[in-house]
């Protein structure tokens, strides 16, 4: 197995005339938790959609899973299924919690769906809500179901877009514990987009700071928080950046 999952060169995403993402160099190491931080509109979600293989970069080359061949667009199904993303505003099917969590497994024609779904729901503390209708869930429960339906797939790479935004401290801790458990047991590579510097500090091995679509700085977590090189990173880490 290769020691990196993503490598990107000169990645650009342009909508119309507006370039919303410019990342000259990107490496995500296998088994790492990369935190992507930055203010709203910095291009974090766009980068995540590119890494989820849902959206091709307008320019640049992306390599995935140690392959020497760049990603083809649209990527083949077997490649796409190695990555799963939890969206900032998760949408569930109008069905039971169980069936929502089972969706990805059933799409793959997997076996042992029931025990796997029950285990995933257990991980996010929602085992007792398996038969609840999705539309009856609170915001926190919905976010946890969205995480469970990704965890159940045991992906090689898990991409999380603000998974704890607008959640109370209890739900935040449940999700963070589930992520720690996933890393411990499955050595899953995780890319976590968050605007919460403290969360990035608690969880990440490496941190990337995006501002106005540009990668300002990327470093190991300790170096990033203790001795940031760029003055803008320093300001962001200290909470002095006004945005």
């Amino acid at each position: 197995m290769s020691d990196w999952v993503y490598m990107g060169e000169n990645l650009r995403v342009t909508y119309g005339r507006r370039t919303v993402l410019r990342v000259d160099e990107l490496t995500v190491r296998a088994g790492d938790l990369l935190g992507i931080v930055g203010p709203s509109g910095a291009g974090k979600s766009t980068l995540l959609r590119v890494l989820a293989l849902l959206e091709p970069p307008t320019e640049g080359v992306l390599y995935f899973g140690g392959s020497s061949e760049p990603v083809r667009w649209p990527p083949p199904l077997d490649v796409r299924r190695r990555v799963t993303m939890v969206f900032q505003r998760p949408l569930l099917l109008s069905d039971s919690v169980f069936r929502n969590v089972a969706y990805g497994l059933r799409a793959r024609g997997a076996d042992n769906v029931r025990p796997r779904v029950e285990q995933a729901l257990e991980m996010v503390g929602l085992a007792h809500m398996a038969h609840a209708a999705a539309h009856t869930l609170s915001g926190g429960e919905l976010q946890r179901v969205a995480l469970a339906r990704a965890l159940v797939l045991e992906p090689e790479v898990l991409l999380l877009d603000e998974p704890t935004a607008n959640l109370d401290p209890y739900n935040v801790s449940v999700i963070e514990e589930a992520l720690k458990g996933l890393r411990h047991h499955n050595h899953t590579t995780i890319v976590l987009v968050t605007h919460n510097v403290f969360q990035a500090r608690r969880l990440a091995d490496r941190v990337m700071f995006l501002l106005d679509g540009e990668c300002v700085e990327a470093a190991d977590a300790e170096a990033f928080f203790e001795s940031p090189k760029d003055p803008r990173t320093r300001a962001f880490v200290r909470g002095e950046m006004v945005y």
Partner: protein
Amino acid sequence: MLCGESKRRRCAINEIWEGLKQAALLLWHLDPEVMHIVGVSLRVSGTALLFSAAIGIPLGAWLGFSRFVGRRLVVALLYTGMGFPPVVVGLFVYLLLSQSGPLGSLNVAWVPRLFTVGAMVVAQVIISFPLVAGFTMAAVKGVDPSLRQQLISLGATEWQATLAVLREARFGVIVSVIAGFGSIISEVGAVMLVGGNIEGSTRVLTTAIVLETRRGNFSLAIALALILLLLSFLSNILMLRLQGKTA
């Protein structure tokens, strides 16, 4: 003068009342003529609805999901089709299928002849499929586009994600089928033109109502009208039950 008008009004009310009573008797005794007309109506509109759904639902879903050059033109044509006067459709089908028309002159088995049930089905399909497609497109577009992306990120194939979104849009899809059925079961102009209202063959509820009213045979006309209303009501109840089961 006043006395005469009052008499006429009373006479008309009596006529309607008598018509209702006789209509009830015709229905109660399952009058063979009435039942035959109902059978032809259901056969024509049911078959046309199946074809309309088979064409309209995939077309509407495709228009709801896809982006391509010329999509606006296709949607504009579809909207035009949704408001197309049935009698114009009838005229168009008549010209196509007549002996000297572009299809009728081919004289092949798959082209239905004028004044047959097949010709009526063709006309009704042309009337109802734009409605089914248009409402399906609106229903699909009403589902948050992010859902499809989220399902794909969970490993769904394009086809699986499409089916899941269609399932989410099922209420609108069911409404599209109801609208399609409503538009053809109560339509008279096109079936009159291409069917010819031939007794025992192409006579359907609407054309029979027109004929019996003209003949002054109000009891039969009212009986047929009541059945038409009942069919329309039952189709709506059926669709609502289906909708309830899938909710």
